[in-house]
C-alpha cells in the first residue's frame, strides 16, 4: 500500500493485523469461539504526524493500539516499526529483549488516570521507573530528570515525593504523560488520553500534548471516540468499525468528503456549532454487530442505506480511492456522501460518538 508520503518509510506500519480473543466455554474450558476484536487492520503512521483512530465503543481501537505496541500478542499480521537507532524491526513475533529496546522509542499514554499509576509508588518512582529499569539515571540525577519532566508537563518538581492519590484526574494524566516521555520516545500511542477527564481539563491536556509534540518531535497515534477531539489534534484520521479500518484520509478531507457510509453517519452525529443550523443526524438502523459473530461481506451492510447484493457477499478491501484517501466500500466512487460544509466544530466534549447510534 502506498500512502501520500510514499517516498518516506512510515514510522509504524501495520498489515492485516488481527487479534482474536478466545471464548472459553463448556465443562473443560474448550474454546468455543473467538472475539475478533481486531480483524485485519492496515495502517501506517508517518514520522511527525498525528494519526487519529476513531470508532464506537467496542470497535477494537484500544485493542489495536495495545497490539501494535505488543502489550498483546497479535493473532496474525505484520507490525513494522522503523526504529531510529536500529532501523526497521518486525514486532509481531519479537522477543522480550527486542521489545524492551523498541519500547524506549515507542510508549503509551493510558485512558484511565486512576489505574495507570501504581498507588504504592511515589510520583518520582513512577516517572523514574523507565530510567531506573534501563539504568539511565540514579540518585540525584534521576531526581533532576524526573523534576524536569514534571516541569515539562506543567507540574512542580517537588511533586515527586507525593503519591498518586494526592492528585486530580488531570494532574494524574500529566504524570502518565511524563512517564511516557521519560525515555524520549519517537512514537506515543495515546489511548483515549482525555476521555476520562472533565471537559475543561480535556482542552488543557490536548494543548499540552500538542506543545510536547512540537518540542520533542513526537509522532502520535491518537485513539479516541470523540470526533471533535480527533478533528482538533489529528493530521490524518482512520475510522474503525467492528475490528477493521473502513476509511483513512487527511482530517479535512475525511470530514468534508467522506467516502464510506459509516463515516458519513458518524459525521452527521457531530452537533454543529450553531444550534439553529442543526441538521437531522442520520439514524443508523440495527445494532453494532458482535465481533464474535460478524455479518458476512461488508460488516456494515446490515445497517447501510446504500447496501447492494455485492455487499452481503464480499468484504470490500481498504483501497486508495483518491490520492491519500483510503476507503473500504465497493461503491466509494459512485456514492456522493454528505460531510461537514461549515466551519469545523470546536472542542466542547459534547460530540462523542454515541454508544448506541439509534439514540
Amino acid at each position, binding site marked *: 500500500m502506498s500512502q501520500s508520503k510514499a517516498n518516506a518509510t512510515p514510522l509504524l506500519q501495520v498489515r492485516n493485523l488481527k487479534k482474536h480473543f478466545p471464548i472459553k466455554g463448556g465443562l473443560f474450558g474448550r474454546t468455543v469461539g473467538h472475539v475478533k476484536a481486531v480483524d485485519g487492520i492496515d495502517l501506517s503512521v508517518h514520522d511527525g504526524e498525528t494519526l487519529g483512530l476513531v470508532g464506537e465503543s467496542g470497535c477494537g481501537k484500544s485493542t489495536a493500539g495495545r497490539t501494535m505496541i505488543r502489550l498483546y500478542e497479535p493473532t496474525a499480521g505484520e507490525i513494522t516499526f522503523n526504529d531510529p537507532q536500529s532501523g526497521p524491526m518486525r514486532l509481531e513475533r519479537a522477543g522480550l529483549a527486542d521489545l524492551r529496546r523498541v519500547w524506549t522509542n515507542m510508549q503509551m499514554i493510558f*485512558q484511565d488516570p486512576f489505574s495507570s499509576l501504581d498507588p504504592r509508588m511515589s510520583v518520582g518512582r513512577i516517572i523514574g521507573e523507565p530510567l531506573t529499569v534501563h539504568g539511565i539515571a540514579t540518585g540525584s540525577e534521576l531526581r533532576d530528570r524526573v523534576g524536569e519532566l514534571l516541569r515539562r508537563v506543567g507540574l512542580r518538581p517537588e511533586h515527586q*515525593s507525593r503519591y498518586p492519590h494526592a492528585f486530580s484526574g488531570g494532574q494524574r494524566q500529566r504524570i502518565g504523560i511524563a512517564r511516557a516521555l521519560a525515555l524520549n520516545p519517537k512514537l506515543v500511542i495515546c489511548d483515549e488520553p482525555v476521555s476520562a477527564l472533565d471537559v475543561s481539563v480535556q482542552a488543557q491536556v490536548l494543548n499540552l500534548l500538542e506543545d510536547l509534540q512540537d518540542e520533542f518531535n513526537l509522532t502520535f497515534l491518537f485513539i479516541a471516540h470523540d470526533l471533535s477531539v480527533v478533528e482538533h489534534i489529528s493530521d490524518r484520521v482512520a475510522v474503525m468499525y467492528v475490528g477493521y479500518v473502513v476509511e483513512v484520509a487527511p482530517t479535512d478531507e475525511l470530514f468534508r468528503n467522506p467516502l464510506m457510509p459509516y463515516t458519513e453517519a458518524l459525521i452527521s452525529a457531530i452537533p454543529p456549532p450553531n444550534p439553529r443550523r442543526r441538521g437531522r443526524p442520520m439514524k443508523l438502523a440495527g445494532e453494532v454487530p458482535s465481533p464474535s459473530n460478524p455479518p458476512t461481506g461488508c460488516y456494515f451492510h446490515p445497517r447501510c442505506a446504500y447496501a447492494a447484493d455485492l455487499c452481503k457477499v464480499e468484504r470490500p478491501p481498504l483501497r486508495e480511492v483518491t490520492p491519500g484517501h483510503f476507503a473500504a466500500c465497493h461503491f466509494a466512487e459512485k456514492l456522493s456522501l454528505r460531510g461537514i460544509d461549515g466551519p469545523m466544530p470546536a472542542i466542547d466534549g459534547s460530540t462523542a460518538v454515541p454508544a448506541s447510534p439509534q439514540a
Partner: protein
Amino acid sequence: MATAEAATPGSAAASAKFAEDVSQWTLMRWRFARNRLSLFGLVVLLILYFLAVIAPFLSPYPYNDISTDYIHVAPTKLHVINGQISVCPLLQEMRDFQWFYEEDCDRAVPVDWMVKGHAYTILGIPFETHLFGVTQVPPPPDPAKLKARAAAAAAAAPKSDDPLAAFKVDAPSVASGGVEADKLPPKVFLFGSDVQGRDMFSRVMEGSRISLTIGLVGVALSVVLGAILGTASGYLGGLIDDLVQRFIEIIQSMPTLPLWAAIAAALPPTMPVPQRYLLITIILSFVSWTGLARQVRGKVMAYANLDYIAAARLAGSSHMRIILAHMLPNASSHIIVVSTLAVPGSILGETALSFLGLGMLPPAVSWGVLLRDAQQIQSVILHPWLLIPAVPIILTVTCYQFLGDGLRDAADPYSS
C-alpha cells in the same frame, strides 16, 4: 531494591502535615490509629507477647515442679495481714479419695517481691530473680488445734455401715499438712494446682510461649507458601495455574482432622519437643496456605489487567520486578490482613491438636496441653481452675480478630 532511596522520601516525615506527601502506608497507619478496638487488641497482644518473653520471671515455680503436698489446690486466697499481702499455710486432708485443704491463717506469712528462686534464662541471659514468691517458713502448727481437728473428723466419719470404711485413710495421719511441707514456706498458687501439684500459673505462663508463637510461625510459613504459589499461579497462568489450583482443591478437600491424626501418629513420640513443635507447625501451615494462595492469585490476576502493570512492562521491567515492585507491595496490605486473621485459626488449631493428644505431648506445655487435663467432667465440677488456660486463648484470639478487623478497615482505600 535499587529504588529504595526514592521509596522513603525523607521529606515525607518532615512535612507530614501535608496530606499530599503522605504514602499509602502512612494513611493506613493514621486510619488504624483511629480504631480504638483494634488499637486495644494490638496493645493487649503486645503485652501478652511481652509476658510470654518474661514468663519465667513471673512464674514463682518451675512449670514442671511436682509436689504431692499440693494436689488439686484451689487458687490461693491472698489476705492482707499487717498491711502486707500474705498467704496462709494449708492443712491437707484426704476424705473419700479426695484431697481437701484448709487454710491456717494463724500462721500466715507475707508474699515477698523480687525473690531469688530457681535459675532460668531469658534470651540467653541467666537470671534467678522472680517477681514474687514466699520465702518465710511459718511457725509449726499448733498441736492442740490439730488434735481438735482430728477429733472432729473422727466424730463426723460414718462408722461400720459404710462399705468403703476399710479403704479410708485415717484422717489425723495426713491432716498435719505433711511433715515436709511444714518445714518449707507455703506455696502461692494464683491459678491453683493440677493433679501433680504443679503450679497452674507457672504452667499457663510457660504454655503461652508455645501457644503464642506456634500461630505466628505457622502463619509465616503459610504466608510464604501461599504468596509464592498464589503469585506464580496468577501471574504465569496457563498450565501452572491449573496445576496449582487443582492441587489446592485436593488439599482443601482432605478431611483435616484425620490428616493431622495420621501425620501426628507418624511422628515418633520419643521425638524431642522442639522438633515435634516445628513439625506440627509445618503440618498446620501445610493445610492453611491454600486460602491465602487463592486470595493472592485473585489479587495478582486483577492487578495484571491494570494499566500501571502495562506501563511497567512498557518501561522495560522484568517479570521479577513487576512482581516485587508492583504486585507484592499492592497485595501486601491484603496479605497482612489475611495473615493476621489467620493467626487465631492457627493458635486454635494447635490447641485442638494438643487437646486431642495429637499435638504437643505432656512434658512440653502449651495451652492446649493444659486444657487436656480438664477433659474429664469431674474437673469442671471439682477443679474448675483447670479451665483457666481457656481464658488466655479466648483473649488472644479475640484480640487478633480485633487487630485483623482494624487492619482490614485501614487497608481499604475506600473507607472514609
